[in-house]
């Protein structure tokens, strides 16, 4: 017999310690004895928007591992591997996210190495050449995939070809990037004055002290953040023909209001019901009932100055029109017909229960803290508001906010595949 389901409780927002590294920079910490690992996360608000050519901003950060005045790339890689460390650097238009995960016993030397990379990267010419060739290779492979083609053209159409959120990397950007560009970018924009720091795992006081000391020696340039303004797109649809493709990729959506808005959780519930989880309307119809795709989902993507909502799917090549029509039908149904209690309660429980994942374990807690802080959102007030709305929103409020956030008329539709969509 079916056991009683216990309605997921409102998660307790974990207490994260905050240390001031300077008047604008915080170090968030959360410890656990459950592991021998320590992770350091750094978010620096100096992404590639500061460079006219996005490759310059990306390479300047990513290639800190390519050599310093004391070590070459192989020595750096060897040292990191010896420490059992993984050093990931991901650059977006607004920020760069650096994560160093390593065994506790090796954290201090790994931190010394990271500091050396951040302050002494020298971008050897031969390494730049290799990086260009590798990036060119990856781009060539990506340009064969309908999903990637649809994705980058979606953002291009949504923001414009020269907008930081719409500009994608071209072969010529890679070709034109020179060593001097990277040196100049790092000199000008490796600014840690407004960075965010997070420490998670099995660290001790010595590790905290060492992080604090290293931070104080990093460049503090106080550069002013470049605000990004977005306009509504002029053109609303685009098809890219890929004759040999067995599937057509669909990417559609629009700019939306920020998650900083008080009413955002109402939209978030609506978007979850519509396409944001496995049991969503879109997935039920287009995958589970019609078998048109392996997966269809909608999601939000938050840039610092503009949020985006989008739907993605790869469908049978000749059925893209049909799938888009079905998405439209589901949309109309969603905003016009009441959501029944069973579905609404399911999504309330799902959202409350899965909120626990953001607070489960030291690494998730600190990553989430940095992500929200970078977007200018207080974890405490965001989640308290979210939990309140999950528990109290009525079905009409959810549909109204969904229609307000994503009116169909604002929808940008991009397809890539072998059948022209109308």
């Amino acid at each position: 017999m079916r056991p009683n389901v216990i309605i997921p409780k409102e998660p307790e927002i974990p207490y994260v310690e905050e240390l001031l590294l300077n008047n604008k920079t915080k170090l968030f910490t959360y410890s656990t004895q459950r592991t021998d690992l320590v992770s350091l996360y750094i978010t620096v608000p100096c992404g590639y928007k500061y460079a006219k050519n996005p490759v310059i901003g990306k390479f300047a950060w990513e290639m800190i591992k390519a050599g310093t005045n004391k070590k070459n790339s192989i020595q750096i890689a060897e040292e990191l591997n010896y420490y059992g460390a993984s050093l990931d650097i991901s650059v977006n238009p607004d920020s760069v996210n650096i994560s160093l995960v390593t065994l506790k016993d090796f954290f201090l030397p790994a931190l010394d190495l990271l500091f050396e990379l951040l302050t002494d990267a020298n971008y050897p010419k031969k390494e730049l050449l290799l990086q260009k060739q590798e990036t060119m290779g990856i781009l060539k492979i990506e340009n064969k995939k309908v999903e990637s083609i649809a994705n980058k053209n979606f953002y291009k159409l949504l923001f414009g070809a020269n907008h930081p959120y719409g500009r994608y990397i071209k072969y010529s950007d890679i070709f034109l990037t020179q060593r001097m560009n990277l040196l100049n970018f790092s000199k000008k924009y490796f600014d840690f004055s407004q960075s965010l720091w997070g420490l998670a795992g099995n660290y001790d006081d010595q590790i905290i002290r060492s992080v604090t000391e290293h931070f104080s020696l990093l460049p503090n340039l106080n550069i002013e953040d470049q605000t990004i303004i977005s306009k509504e797109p002029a053109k609303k649809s685009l098809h890219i023909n890929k004759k040999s493709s067995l599937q057509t990729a669909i990417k559609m959506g629009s700019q939306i209001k920020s998650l900083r808005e008080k009413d955002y959780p109402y939209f978030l519930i609506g978007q979850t019901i519509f396409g944001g989880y496995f049991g969503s309307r879109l997935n039920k119809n287009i995958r589970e009932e019609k078998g048109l795709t392996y997966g269809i989902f909608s999601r939000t993507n938050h840039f610092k100055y503009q949020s985006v909502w989008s739907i993605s799917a790869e469908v049978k090549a000749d059925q893209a029109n049909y799938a888009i029509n079905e998405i439209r039908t589901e949309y109309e149904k969603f905003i016009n017909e009441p959501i029944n209690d069973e579905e609404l309660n399911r999504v309330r429980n799902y959202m409350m229960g899965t909120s626990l994942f953001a607070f489960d374990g030291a690494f998730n807690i600190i990553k989430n803290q940095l992500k929200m802080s970078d977007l200018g959102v207080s974890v405490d007030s965001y989640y308290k508001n979210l939990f309140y709305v999950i528990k109290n929103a009525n079905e009409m409020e959810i549909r109204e906010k969904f229609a307000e956030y994503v009116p169909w008329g604002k929808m940008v539709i991009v397809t890539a595949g072998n059948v022209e969509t109308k």
Partner: protein
Amino acid sequence: MLKQAFKKGCLSNGLRYILYPVKDTSLVCVNMFYFVGSRDEEPDKTGFAHLFEHLMFAGSEQAPSFDNEVESAGGVNNAFTTQDYTDYFIELPADNVELALWLESDRMRHLNINEKSLNIQKNVVIEEFKETHLNQPYGDLFHILSDLCYTKHPYRWPTIGLSPEHIEKATIEDVQRFYDKWYQPNNAILAISGKFNENIEDLIKQYFENIPSNLINERNYTLEPPIEHQIKKIVKRDVPLNLIVIAFPMPGRLSPEYSTYDILSDILGNDNSSRLYSSLVKEKKLFISVDASIMGSVDPGLMLITGIVKPSIDVSKAEAALWDELINFNKKPITDRELEKVKNMFLSSLSMDIYDLQKVGFELSFYEALSKAELLFENYDVYRSITKDDIMSLADRILNPDRAFVLNYLKK
């Protein structure tokens, strides 16, 4: 820290279970591992184990909508199929662990098998086949490689299947037969990791003890004969860059030499300071990337060296340089630090795996299915005990052009 306490048990019907308590979490993961994968398929109905995985979400007698039940309890679920096994997991707030046990027991006992869900999931899986294999650059690489390296063993087809036509052919009778044959309690391992109460074993008994079991026949798949000379294949496809794969046969997961192969592959090409990467990418500038890995299969499998050749470089020149590195591996002795490096990386990766509730549940189940769950932690001691001589002696024996499969996957 690494060796964490867990408890094991076995019900009268043969279902083995593992309990891995974690203190600082409010979640629990219920992992159900079935020891059946694509190696257990008929050669004319490949891709079936994976198709069946999809059907396990089509509902059961008491729970017509599996996903709705999990989502209503605030959880998520998923599954994956390999050549050797199929793994299902539900991760949810700890208070609802009983619901997850009920769902797993109901689909183990009374799966809802019907034509409608079979037909829909055939379509879904065919779209997955296209999305992940047919409509991607290099997407058929493992089809070609499996066919090249195996002639007798069922590893000769990949988990997704040989072709969408095989998926299309699946019948409701096939589904029922497969379910009856493999989805038995004595062919499954249940692992619960995370937060749970002391009554968890009572709940396991309550939901699973009464499920009858069938005899699972011992597998006796034909092993590949030893390779006596190099077997090479060249294919041309619409891809942007040339790719070379060299595959060396290696023993199965329980072989005493398995870990030595693993460490050898790490020294060769697991990272950007490895021998192949340093030499062929950084110094000689012949490849865009090169890496070495092992397939990790239960039965004898493969160690793979994969390199993407730079556009301006002739493929035969790149391949010759790759062989030069492999053949001359022992001319450059392994240093203490080099060996320590790969062991530290292994420890770090293991530490990450056991921090993750789903991964630790799966790993413990996998080792229990193979032999015993304790191996997950004992493995680290095994890796630590491997010496430079062990690795060099293995390299001497196996890094031989006459004992390898070679694939040149070239652009048209």
